[in-house]
């Protein structure tokens, strides 16, 4: 086995292998050992992915596995990485490792921690397979591998207060995604009927889509990924799934699984689509922008923190789709950047939301108050993540969205300029709405009057406090809101361990956008040829 083969196959085999080992350990010895194996497996996978990233180039080429797999259908075991997939692979292995590490300290209420860890590893293997696959059928297979375990994760470890709700959420998640992937598969078949191959690299380099079949294939594939990304109005499974899933499930769903959709657009939809078709591409871009505004408006009216974060994903992924639909190098760069940033930031937001739920037993925004005073560090991490998510320049969230807007203003010459300029302006207003709802959450959930606070002069409009009377962490908690533990604990060590990579990378990608942009640019030029 060559170096490349070992590296790429290993990326899928290691998490699967450790899942198997952990499964054996859980059966034969103890759950603790199984969990330990799973954590080690995720860390090794992360290390392995770093090695793969370091030893591969930024374009698809010699660093690949290409073997015959199902000969009768000419399906090939074709794996490879380039600058488009590497950032997503690294982000996925990192998030998966963070999720598993966070399980060490935090046992799910209903037990079965080792099984949960094993399922996470299986999901990770499926996701990595998707990011590596360069054969359409192979992609579909890995796509399904990543889906089914997630159904179990939501169904068995979801919201313990709402069994019916979590079952409904899990089922809806599965139905939507599997139906989406079926549409996608049909699209792939249509592409093959025209091109005679499932190999997307060949398709990208030589296929000139035209005619009804090509349009139908493009639409089917777009619809399939629209479910996963999600694109309005196919987002409907997402709020339920994300809010009912356990913390690690929500993190993985938002940070990693949604990226299968956005990556699918870049890798599999763009090559089979001709931007000069009159309606298809502008329509996809418009749906992305509708998602941005719709998601933000939905967030403004949400009363549940996890649902709010879930809807915010609809908006952020709208930027990714808008960027991809510009059919420019800058657009793909923006899409990859926004995908990675969304993974880091929303992952962090869901981790914090989970930590809040652990402490207070609820994510109902009406019941959560004055977290600045009760758990100042946790609240500060949330405020940081919120600032990153609302696209504050200097943090990772900004660049992806800014570049998406730039790409929309500077779209491919064959696309209608006026439409895309309008979409860019609308998307920019989505950023303002995003700021509005995150500030509303900070105001309602983190801030507030802990004790009775009277203004200094009741007659005047303005109040000045020379010294605040509130000591952080030692507040009198108002009896209205429910508190589970008598002693409220702030962020503990294992949480810092699991979260700090996300915090640090949000900062790093905020100040150094060049880290990601250059390799993506090279990969796009190589992959799409003349773009």
């Amino acid at each position: 086995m060559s170096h490349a083969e070992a590296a790429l196959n290993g990326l899928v085999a290691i998490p699967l292998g450790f899942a198997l080992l952990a499964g054996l350990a859980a059966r034969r010895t103890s759950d603790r050992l199984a969990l330990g194996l799973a954590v080690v497996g995720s860390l090794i996978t992360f290390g392995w992915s770093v090695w793969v990233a370091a030893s591969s180039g930024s374009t698809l080429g010699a660093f690949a596995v290409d073997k015959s797999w199902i000969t009768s259908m000419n399906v090939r075991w074709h794996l490879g990485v380039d600058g488009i997939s590497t950032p997503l692979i690294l982000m996925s292995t990192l998030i998966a490792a963070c999720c598993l590490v966070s399980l060490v300290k935090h046992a799910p209420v209903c037990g079965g921690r080792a099984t949960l860890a094993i399922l996470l590893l299986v999901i990770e293997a499926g996701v990595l397979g998707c990011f590596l696959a360069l054969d359409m059928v192979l992609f579909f297979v890995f796509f399904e591998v990543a889906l089914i375990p997630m159904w179990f994760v939501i169904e068995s470890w979801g919201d313990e207060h709402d069994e019916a709700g979590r079952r409904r959420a899990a089922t809806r998640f599965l139905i939507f995604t599997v139906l989406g992937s079926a549409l996608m598969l049909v699209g792939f078949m249509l592409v093959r009927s025209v091109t005679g191959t499932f190999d997307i690299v060949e398709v990208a380099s030589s296929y000139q889509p035209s005619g009804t079949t090509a349009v139908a294939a493009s639409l089917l594939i777009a619809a399939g990924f629209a479910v996963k990304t999600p694109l309005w109005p196919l987002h409907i499974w997402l709020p339920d799934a994300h809010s009912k899933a356990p913390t690690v499930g929500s993190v993985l769903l938002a940070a990693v699984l949604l990226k299968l959709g956005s990556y699918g657009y870049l890798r599999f939809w763009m090559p089979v689509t001709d931007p000069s078709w009159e309606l298809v591409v502008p329509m996809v871009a418009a749906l992305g922008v509708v998602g941005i505004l719709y998601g933000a408006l939905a967030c403004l009216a949400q009363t549940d923190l996890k649902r709010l974060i879930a809807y915010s994903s609809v908006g952020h992924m709208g930027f990714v789709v808008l960027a991809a639909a510009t059919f420019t190098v800058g657009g793909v760069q923006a899409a990859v950047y926004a995908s990675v940033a969304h993974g880091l930031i929303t992952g962090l937001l869901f981790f914090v939301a989970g930590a809040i739920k652990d402490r207070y037993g609820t994510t109902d925004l009406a019941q959560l108050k004055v977290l600045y005073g009760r758990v100042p560090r946790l609240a500060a991490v949330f405020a940081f993540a919120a600032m990153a998510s609302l696209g504050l320049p200097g943090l990772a969230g900004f660049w992806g969205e800014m570049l998406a807007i730039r790409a929309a203003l500077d779209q491919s010459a064959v696309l209608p300029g006026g439409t895309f300029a309008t979409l860019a302006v609308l998307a920019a207003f989505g950023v303002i709405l995003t700021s509005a709802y995150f500030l509303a959450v900070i105001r309602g959930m983190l801030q507030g009057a802990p004790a009775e606070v009277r203004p200094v002069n009741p007659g005047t409009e303005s109040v000045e406090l020379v010294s605040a009377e509130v000591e952080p962490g030692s507040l009198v908690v108002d009896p209205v809101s429910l508190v589970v533990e008598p002693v409220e604990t702030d962020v503990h060590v294992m949480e810092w361990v699991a979260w700090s990579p996300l915090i640090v990378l949000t900062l790093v990608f905020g100040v150094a956008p060049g880290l990601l942009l250059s390799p993506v640019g090279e990969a796009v030029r190589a992959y799409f040829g003349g773009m």
Partner: protein
Amino acid sequence: MSGLLVVLLVLPFASAAATMMVGHRGESAVKGIAAGAAALGLAVACVVAFPSLGDAEPLGSVFASTSSAGPAIELSFYVDQLSAVMLLLAHTVAFLVQVYSLGYLADDSRYPSYAALVSIFTGAMTMVVVADDLWVLLVGWELMGACSYFLISHHWELPEARAGAVKAFLMTRTADLGLLFAILMLGSRFDSYRISTIMSAIAEGGFGRDELWLPAVLLTAAVVGKSAQFPLHTWLPDAMPGPTPISALIHAATMVAAGVFLVARTHPLFLSAPTALNLLAVVAAVTMFLAATYALFSSDLKRVLAWSTVSQLAYMFGALAVGAYSAAVLHLLAHGAFKGLLFLAAGSVIHAVGGSTSMAAMGALRDRLPDTFLTMTIGFGALAGVAPLAGFFTKDAVMGAALEAAQDGRLVWPWVAWVLFLSMVVTALLTVAYSLRAWLLVFFGEPAMVAEPVGAKPVVEPFDGAQEPLVETHESPWSMRIPLYLLTIPTALGGLAVAYPELIFGAENEESLVHAELAVSMTALVAVTAALVFWQWRRHERRDPWTSLVLPHPPVDRVYDVALVRPVRGMAQLVRVGDRDVVDAYANGAGASARGLGWVLRLAQNGNVQGYLMVVVVGAAALAVAAGVMA
């Protein structure tokens, strides 16, 4: 030199990180780090800035560049005369604010995060003034907005602090979209994001008159938001619940001053776009008068000062609109000195009377706060334009430029210049009136307890009601008084700069900054106005001469509420309901009558997932085969 620039940029952030790390574990260490880093920052800023003043060549440096689609995004910096004076201003005020805060927030449990945010604020302003790449500028620009958001809501237990912070952030961020789109347009037009490259390309000419009007107007929108000009002026007075030293920082040297800086930095672009200049001039003329009027009727000391900032910034925008670059920058510097002084002195007064910002709670403090009285008198004098303090000279330079533009204007339409000039004259008189009124109400008249006739309830309630109702007034600690005295030096002597502008701007600068006739006539008008106000005050038994007049709250807020906030809220509710009831309907299998999807859904909801999965996979496979056969 560029190494020092990196130090200057990194230092505030490092200090903020260190402050947050140490946190509550070492109170005195935090204070040492915050004040020490600010002092070091000031020293480095001096070393970087002084060689760049006068005839020096601008210092440009590029540290990193991103090869991406479109123009490169670079980590590039550019220090010219303008950057140099802004660096000095920002770091001086930031240092004094950190020192002052040692006393002002001595007992505050949130001091560590406060000090860290002040440091980040300083770093962000530094980034703005030395940035060459427009994106670096935008990062600093919005980082300042975020810092001010957190600092305004420092006392987050107060509803007005929470509301004011959100309002400030949302209004400025919406306006910032103008900057974002201006950057994108300039980048695609000039194939570069470097300010120096773009500005020299514009200065070299070759562009039609007003060809670049759109980016210039977009920039105007951004600075109108950031500098709280009409019609986005309402956030600044509502930002007053923040700690007073923060107001000094925001008003004197960072945040709102950044708007003036941006127009000065991109002045060639504005000069090539008369549309934007006319717009800027009209906005300035309206804003200065409106804000001064609000200042005249406000009963809250900090709000008087906040409105006066809005009004004085409008002077600077007016000057820039008529092409008087040096006059605008000098007025910005003078304003930085005296407004910093006024806010810090106001903090000292507020500290002394136990936390109230209402002028009704003050009065007759002259003898009890002698140091504050002396320094604040000089500050008010400079604000009102009393000769020979700094504000007198710089305001004269600004107004002289406006008059010249009105007489033989080339940049803006003559009637706009006349409106601007007349507004400047009227506003100057209003400024005298509100300064004198505030000064009289705070330091003269009767002590608050006796003078205030509001029922039996004591007006000034100490914060924890257990203490005695009568607040003991006392002079502030030395850490708060020293910054006051230090700021009086530039406030009193800074006006001399108009005599030697070449020391700052170099010999090429040919703007006439001294207008003797105008200065004499303005001084006469100022004296008459002051006498009128004084007479009114005496006539009203040495109390507020116009308590009975209440100016309604800025009506623009209502417009925003009706036109924007409520529709958005309504739409949000609509979306929520829609998502639940309409879009959800298809997912819930409301179309169970329809076969196909409805059947699959029912199957799945029975929990029979294997059966359902089989159906889906088989279905997909069947479709796939069909597709294959078709082909």
